[in-house]
């Protein structure tokens, strides 16, 4: 087992573990906002790491076999991970704003700065 394979296995393991933590948080947390906090950050981080495993694999195969289709694989996996990161952040913000506007509050809430600011 070479060093590159160990790096790929480590990236895959980190990605799967963080995705699992996100889904466990989705199932176990008591509130809309805490669930969103768990799923958005943990699954975005885990998906970036699984994509990073594909990028490392593509660059390693490109350097060892000099076949340009593996470079295309690495670049396209990077583009997909970038799209995933941007769209996840924006859609989580939209869902949180919609949940606040539809009247759902966190359970121990005492102040509400967003309603006071009248945005």
């Amino acid at each position, binding site marked *: 087992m070479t060093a590159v*394979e160990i790096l*790929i*296995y480590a990236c*895959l393991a980190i*990605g*799967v573990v963080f*995705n*699992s933590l*996100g*889904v466990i948080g*989705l*199932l176990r947390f008591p509130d*809309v906002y805490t*669930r*969103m906090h768990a*799923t*958005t950050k943990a*699954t*975005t981080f*885990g*998906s970036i790491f*699984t*994509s990073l*495993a*594909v990028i490392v*694999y593509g660059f390693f195969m490109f350097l060892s076999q000099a076949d340009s*289709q*593996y470079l*295309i*694989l690495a670049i*396209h*996996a990077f*583009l*997909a*991970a970038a*799209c*995933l990161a941007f*769209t*996840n952040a*924006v*859609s*989580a913000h*939209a*869902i949180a*704003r*919609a*949940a606040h*506007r*539809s009247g*759902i509050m966190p359970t121990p809430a005492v102040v509400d700065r967003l309603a006071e600011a009248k945005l």
Partner: protein
Amino acid sequence: MIDAWILAVLCLVVLMVLATVRLVIGPTAPDRVIALDTVNTLVIASMILLGVVYKEIIFVDVAIVYGLLSFVSTLYIAKYIGGEL
């Protein structure tokens, strides 16, 4: 080497099935939207991994198109829940 990729895909598919539980029992509509968003992210991650498993480079392009288009439906549902539509 192939076994590690398909094992990671198997873990992600099991997590998709677990996230469906929140879509069933979610008390409010934003809970269900969050569960759908989680499934969405997991589908994109597993599509990138399956592109390596099948050794077809063009398959990864599906993940890019998918990530950009499912964003539209999530924003549309969020606009409807917030009462801005």
